[in-house]
Every structure is written in structure tokens, then in C-alpha cells.
């Protein structure tokens, strides 16, 4: 499993995403990866894998749609249990090479 170093990612995720140097195809692919059927996106954070996304759902998550996604490094499901029986927190880690600069090194000046 590939992991990225956190420092370049944590510099400023919003700026990396906003910058048109990150091409439309990359953005579309990233957007496609983070949208998972039946799960509401709660948070998006840089992490050692690239991007970690926290989702919330009041239904048991369908793991088949989760595992079918490209670039998923790791996923975890946290039932809220006694706090809230019908709520699930799913954290999915995606490899996002482009955000780290792999293949785009010249554009980002790394």
C-alpha cells in the first residue's frame, strides 16, 4: 500500500484544489472517488494516504460500493453504538497522487 508524506498535502489542501494547475480530469476523478452512494460527506482531510474523507450515514453502509472505488487505501466503519444506534461514521482513505505532486512535480515546483 502506498502512502504519501503528509507535509506537502497539509500545506494547504484548499489551495491545491483551487489551483487550475490541478487539471479538470484530476478534479473530476477525485470528485468521483469521494462521492459514495448512500453516504453523506462530512469532512475531508489531508492524511498520510492522500485524502481521508469522513462520511456519515443512518443506514448500514454498503461495503460493495465502497470497495469498488478506485484508489481506496483503507476504510473504517465506526458504529455510534449506544450514542446513536442508527448512525454510522465511515472513514475512507484515498490515494491521491496528484495532490502530493507525483506526475505534476514541475507544475507544483517541487
Amino acid at each position, binding site marked *: 500500500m502506498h502512502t504519501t508524506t503528509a507535509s506537502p498535502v497539509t500545506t*494547504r*489542501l*484548499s*489551495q491545491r*484544489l*483551487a*489551483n*487550475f494547475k*490541478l487539471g*479538470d*480530469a484530476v*478534479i*473530476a476523478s*477525485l*470528485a*468521483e472517488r*469521494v*462521492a459514495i*452512494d*448512500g453516504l*453523506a*460527506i462530512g*469532512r*475531508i*482531510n489531508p492524511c498520510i494516504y492522500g485524502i481521508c474523507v469522513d462520511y456519515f450515514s443512518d443506514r448500514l453502509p454498503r461495503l460493495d460500493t465502497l470497495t469498488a472505488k478506485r484508489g481506496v487505501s483503507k476504510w473504517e466503519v465506526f458504529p455510534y453504538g449506544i450514542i446513536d444506534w442508527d448512525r454510522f461514521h465511515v472513514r475512507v482513505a484515498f490515494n491521491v497522487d496528484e495532490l502530493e505532486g507525483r506526475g505534476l512535480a514541475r507544475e507544483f515546483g517541487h
Partner: protein
Amino acid sequence: MRSGFLPDRIVHLHPTRLCNLACRHCYSESSPQRAAALDPVVVGDALARLRDEGYAVVSLSGGEPLLYRSLRAVVERAKELGFRVTMVSNGLLAERADSVLSLVDAVAISFDGLAGSHNEIRGRADAFERACAAVRRLAAVGRPVGAAISLTRAAIPELPDLADHLTGLGARALQIRPVARAGRARELGEATFYRPADLARLYLVSLALEQELPNVRVHCDVVPTETLWQHREAYASLLGACDGLPIHERRLSDLVNPLVVTDTGVLKPISYDFNRRFDIASLEELSSDGVRRYKKHGALEFQTLVGRTVASLQNRGDFIDWFDYCTRYSEAVGAPVSLVRA
């Protein structure tokens, strides 16, 4: 019960299109030449009726609301009726409006990017500086202040720095949206408007900002269609059986949210430039049978439109600004046939 994808039931009140600016992207085509304004007594009576119809928030915009001579009277009446009152202002007159601003529950100052982009769109060299001064001033006196940020495609890269700058001044909420293809913005070049990937980009940037600015409420009007589809039950009050009531017995806010009141006194669903075919009534008709007539006839066509629009969300997998999407969808439905009496 929720009515549509908004957390509250909102009246967007445009009491005038008089403005001290004539922004290049203004969807209501406001300017210093638009002198007409709504009669505050008529507005007050209409607000009382709309409160009974279940609306809870009055959001003032324009034109520049601070140029509306009867602003204080309308705000006071809305507060008396129990509305939460918010306002969007360009901020240029904020320093002269402390007393009326102290009456409203929240103010959002509008921004279009960093200084260069903002001033160019606003046609005024000091617009950004003065808008920032308004944020700083309101925050300093403890008023809840936010920023309503509308961005052309070219200004997307400016968003993170703009967000930092505004939160540094004291803004506690950022509402982010793409420039709508409406009003004067229709004259702007094609490069102004978003392609599908740009909508995804704006959404992702907003999500990232939410993490980077933990003490600030970041809201982006662009959302995944998948999310909207998952939350389609929010439209149950319009599209489904609402407590077993037939549509003509439901409250107007169960059916239409947000409700727009234009400077000409026309009530419209969703947005200022929504197809006139779906106009609801005039302000004057609110005291007679206009709303009842709408619920019996016009609301059915609106229900069909929203039903089709919601259904079109399934299996799209892209990103949209829902209210703009609905508005464009309404344009595709025949020629305008207004229900409002001439």
C-alpha cells in the same frame, strides 16, 4: 418538517433594485438608476400573511438594502412578527447604518474574489477595501457577520486566500456560490461560467476550507446530485402527502421555499429570475384570494416541475447549485404565462 433543501423557510425580500453599484454579474440588474421601491405598509401586511403561511426568516437583498428608505420600518415589522431577519449588503454604506444593522440577526457582506476581481466586477476601485472595512467594523462591535461569496470561474483560485482574509477580519460564516447565468451576468463571456469539473472543484475547495477554518461556517451552494437525491424526502411537503392534507390546504411555505418577493411586488418561487410562468401572486393579492388561487392551480404546475427536477437527479453523479439548476429547468418549460393579475 423541512420544506426543500433549506434548513429554514425563507422569504427573500428585494425591496428595491436601487444600488450604489452596478455589478457586472448582478442577477437582478440593480443600479443607481433603479429608483422604484416597495411600499413598506404593503410589505408589512404581506409579511404578516407570510408568517401565517409558515415562513420564519426574512432575508433582505436588492439592490442595496441600506438604500431602501423604509428599511428600518420593514425590519422592525418583521421582528415584531417573529421573523429572523438577515441581510446581504455590499458593505459600502455600513458605517452609516449602525442603528438599523443592530436590529438584524445577521449580515453578510458580498464578495466576488480578492481586490482585483472584486473591484473589476463592481466597477469601483475601493469596493473591496470598503467591503472589508464593513466586515471588520461589524465584527468589532460583536455583530454576527458573514460573507456571501460569488465567484466567476476565473476567481476560484482566489477563494482560499479570500476566505483567510475574511475570517481574519472577523467573518464567522462564508456562503460560496458560482456566479449564476442570470440578469446582467448573461452579458459576461462564456469563460465566466462553470463547466462540470469547475463545480466539482468549488465543492472540494469548500470542503477543504471547512477543515482549514474550524471556527467558521463554510457553506457551498454546489453539492453532489447524489447527496440531493439521498435527501429528496426534504421535498415531501410539496411532492408527497403532507399530513394527509390536499395541496390547496397546505401552508405556502410547505410548497414554496425559498419565496422571492421582487421589487415590483411579485412573489416567485426559488429565485429572482425563475420563469414567470410560475409566479405566485402579487403582494396586493396576498390579502385577498391570491394565495388560495395559487394553491389550487399554480402550485400544481410547480409541483410537477419540482418533481421532474428532483427525479432528474437520480444517477447523475455530478455537482450542481440546486436553486440555479431548478431555475434553468424552469426556463425549459414553455413560454411564461403569469398567474399574477395585471
